[in-house]
C-alpha cells in the first residue's frame, strides 16, 4: 500500500516537472538559420576531427596535407567506430562537448541539424553547383545547408560478362531489357538466379527506391510524404515480378554470400555500390577480372536510370572552439585535388564533380561507371525520422515480395506509416 502511494507521489512530481517546462514553440530555433561567414587568411590552432571507419583511420593523410598549407594549424583526428558513432555524436551534442568537425552519415543530417548541434554552412565557403546534386541535397535541412559532402557512393548493375556472352546478351538499357537480361543469364547463361534484388530486411529500400525514382515517383513533395503514387506502385509491381518469376531469390542473403554466389556463377547480376568491386575481386582473385563488368542502372525507357546516393558529409559543430579553422579544413577537403588525394588514399569516391575529370579516377573503367551513374541520383529526404520511415518501407517491400500483400496495399501502407511517423521537423 505504502509503495503505491509513493509511486503516485513520484508520478505527480514528475508530471509537475514536465509541465513546468513546455517547449517554446515560437522560439528562434524554427527560423531559417543564419550562416556567418569565415574570416580570411590561413587557419590557425588545433582542429579536432571525428571520423568513422576507414575514413577515421586514414584521415591523418589529409591532416598532414592541410598543415602543409596552413603551418599554424594542426588537425587532431579521433577515429570512431561506425557502430555507436551515431550515439556518440548525439551525446556529444547534448553535452556541448563536441569536436570541431565530424564525418556525419548522410541520413543523420536531419536529426543532428534539428537537434541544433550543427553550424550552418557559411555562404561563399563552397559553391553548391560544384557537387553532385543528390549529395548536396543531403546537407540541406529546411532550406539551410549544415555541411559539405565529402565522399559519395551510388549503386550500379554488376553482371557476369561470360554468362551474358553465352546467352548472347548486351547490358540492359531499359526495364524490359533488364528483365530479359536476368532471364537470359538464368536460362541460357546457367546462373541459378539471373539477378539478386534485396527481398527485404534492413536497407531493402535502397535497392527498391531507384526503380520508383526511375518511374518518376517521389518520396516527398515539399514537406509532405508522397510515397503513395501510381508510379511507386508500378515500380513495386516490376520489382516483385523478379521474385514471382524466380529470377531473384526471395530470402535475404547472408553477408558474404552475394559476392561468393556471383563469383561461383550462381548469381548472374546484382545491384550494389563501389565497394563490391573490391569484394568481388577478393573472392574471385585475378581470374574474375575479365568475367564481370559494371554498368549504370537502366532507365525505365532509355538512358541512365536514377540510382540511390549515399556517402558522408563533413559538418562543423556550433560548439566548436575553432570554428573558422574548422570550416577551412572542410573547404580544403572539398577541393578537387584533395578529393583525388583522398580517392588514392582509401578509394572514397569524390563528391565534387570536377575531381572526376582527369587524374586517378579515369584510370579504372569500373570506377568511371560510378562517376557516370552519379549524374543520375536521388538521396532520401533529410528528415530526423528517416531511419524509422525507411525501416517501415523495408518491411512493406518484404511483405510484397513474399506475396502477403498486393503492391498497391504495400505502397499505401508505406505512405500511412510515414505519415504517422511524421518528418520530425
Amino acid at each position: 500500500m505504502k509503495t503505491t502511494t509513493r509511486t503516485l507521489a513520484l508520478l505527480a512530481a514528475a508530471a509537475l516537472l514536465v509541465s513546468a517546462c513546455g517547449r517554446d514553440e515560437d522560439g528562434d530555433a524554427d527560423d531559417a538559420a543564419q550562416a556567418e561567414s569565415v574570416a580570411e587568411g590561413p587557419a590557425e590552432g588545433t582542429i579536432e576531427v571525428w571520423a568513422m571507419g576507414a575514413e577515421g583511420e586514414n584521415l591523418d593523410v589529409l591532416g598532414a596535407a592541410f598543415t602543409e598549407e596552413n603551418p599554424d594549424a594542426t588537425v587532431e583526428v579521433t577515429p570512431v567506430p561506425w557502430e555507436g558513432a551515431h550515439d556518440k555524436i548525439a551525446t556529444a551534442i547534448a553535452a556541448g562537448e563536441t569536436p570541431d568537425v565530424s564525418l556525419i552519415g548522410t541520413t543523420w543530417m536531419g536529426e543532428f541539424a534539428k537537434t541544433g548541434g550543427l553550424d550552418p554552412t557559411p555562404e561563399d565557403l563552397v559553391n553548391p553547383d560544384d557537387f553532385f546534386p543528390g549529395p548536396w541535397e543531403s546537407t540541406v535541412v529546411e532550406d539551410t545547408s549544415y555541411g559539405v559532402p565529402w565522399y559519395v557512393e551510388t549503386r550500379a548493375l554488376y553482371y557476369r560478362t561470360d554468362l551474358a556472352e553465352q546467352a548472347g546478351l548486351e547490358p540492359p538499357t531499359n526495364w524490359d531489357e533488364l528483365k530479359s537480361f536476368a532471364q537470359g543469364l538464368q536460362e541460357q547463361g546457367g546462373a541459378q538466379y539471373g539477378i539478386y534484388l534485396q527481398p527485404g530486411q534492413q536497407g531493402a529500400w535502397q535497392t527498391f527506391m531507384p526503380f520508383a525514382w526511375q518511374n518518376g515517383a517521389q518520396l516527398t513533395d515539399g514537406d509532405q510524404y508522397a510515397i503513395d503514387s501510381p508510379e511507386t506502385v508500378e515500380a513495386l509491381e516490376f520489382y516483385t515480378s523478379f521474385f514471382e518469376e524466380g529470377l531473384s531469390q526471395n530470402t535475404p542473403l547472408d553477408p558474404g554470400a552475394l559476392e561468393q554466389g556471383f563469383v561461383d556463377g550462381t548469381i548472374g547480376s546484382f545491384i550494389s555500390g563501389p565497394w563490391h568491386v573490391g569484394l568481388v575481386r577478393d573472392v574471385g582473385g585475378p581470374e574474375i577480372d575479365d568475367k564481370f563488368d559494371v554498368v549504370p542502372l537502366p532507365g525505365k525507357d532509355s538512358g541512365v536510370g536514377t540510382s540511390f546516393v549515399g556517402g558522408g558529409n563533413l559538418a562543423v559543430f556550433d560548439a566548436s572552439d575553432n570554428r573558422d579553422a574548422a570550416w577551412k579544413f572542410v573547404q580544403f577537403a572539398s577541393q578537387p585535388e584533395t578529393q583525388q588525394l583522398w580517392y588514392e588514399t582509401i578509394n572514397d569516391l569524390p563528391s565534387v564533380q570536377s575531381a572526376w575529370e582527369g587524374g586517378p579516377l579515369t584510370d579504372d573503367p569500373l570506377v568511371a561507371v560510378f562517376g557516370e551513374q552519379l549524374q543520375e541520383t536521388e538521396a532520401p529526404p533529410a528528415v530526423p525520422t528517416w531511419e524509422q520511415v525507411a525501416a517501415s518501407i523495408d518491411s512493406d517491400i518484404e511483405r510484397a515480395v513474399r506475396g502477403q500483400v498486393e503492391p498497391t496495399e504495400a505502397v499505401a501502407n508505406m505512405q500511412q506509416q510515414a505519415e504517422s511517423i511524421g518528418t520530425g521537423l
Partner: protein
Amino acid sequence: MATVSTTPAPVAARRGTTPLRRSQARTAWLLALPFLLLFAIFTIGPVLASLVMSFTDMRSTDLRTPFAVDPAGVSNYVDLFGDPLFRKVAVNTAIFVLVGVPLTMVLALAAAVGLNQITRVRSFFRLGYYLPVITSIVAVAVVWRFLLQPDTGPINQVLGLVGIDGPDWLGSTTLALPTLIVMTAWRNLGYLMVIFLAGLQTVPREMLEAAEVDGAGRWQRFRYVTVPVMRPTLLFGAVITSIGYLQFFEEPFVMTNGGPLDATRSMAMYVYDQFGFGNYGIASAASYVLFVAIAALTFVLFRALRSTD
C-alpha cells in the same frame, strides 16, 4: 526438525541503542556508501528519468534541451497499444516465454535428474551441457545459422537422407520463432541444470528411502518427494528464466534481426529500435510495459510455486 535460531538476544538489544551497535551501524553504512552512490546515479537515476520520459514526447532532437519537452500524458502508452507492430512483438514475447520457459525447465530438470544418477562421466556431461552457456552468442549464431541453412545446412541434409524436404528454418514466418525457442532453450538449460543439480543434493536420502520402503515407485518418489523438496529451487529457476526470456533480445538480434516480417521481433528489440529511431518517449513507455509484465509474471510465479506450508 530443529529450527535454526541465530538471535537469542532480547529484543531491546536488537534496536541498536548501545554505542557499540551505533558505531557498527555507522561503519556498515559507510561501507555500503560507494555502492549506494553508484546505484543511485546509474540505476535509480536512469530508471526515474525514463519513467518521466515515458510521459513526454521526447525525441533525440530534444537532447540539447531535455527539460523543454512537452508533457504527453499517457499518449505514448495509448500509441503503443495502437501500434500493430508493438502488439505483434508482445505476442511474440509471450509465446517465447510461455513455450520457452517450460521447455527449458523440463529439459534442465531431466538433465539434472539424469546426471544425478550417474557418477562416472558426470563432469563430462555437466561440461557439455554448460558449454553453450559460456560460449559467445555471436559464435553460437554463426554455427547455428550454418546448421540451419536451407539447402546446404547439415540439419536439412540429414532430414534429406530420410526423405524429408527440410524447410528454410529461419526464413519462414511460422518456423523462425520456434527455431529460436529451441536454440535458446539449448543455450540456457546448462545454467538451470547446474542449479537443479545442486537442488537435488538437498533432497534427503532417508526421505527417498522411506518412500521406497513404503512402496513408492520411481515416478512417485520424484513427484511426491523430490519435487516438493526442490520447490524453492524450481521457483528460483522459473523466475530467473522468465525474467531472462521476457527480455529476449540476443538470439533474434544476431540470428534473424527480428525477421522474417517481424516474426521473431521481441519487446526488447522493439525498445532498442525505438531508441535507435530517437523516439525516447515511446521507447521508455515500451520499457515500462515490459517492466510491468516482468513484475506481474514474477508475482504470479511466486504465488503458484510458493511452498504450501
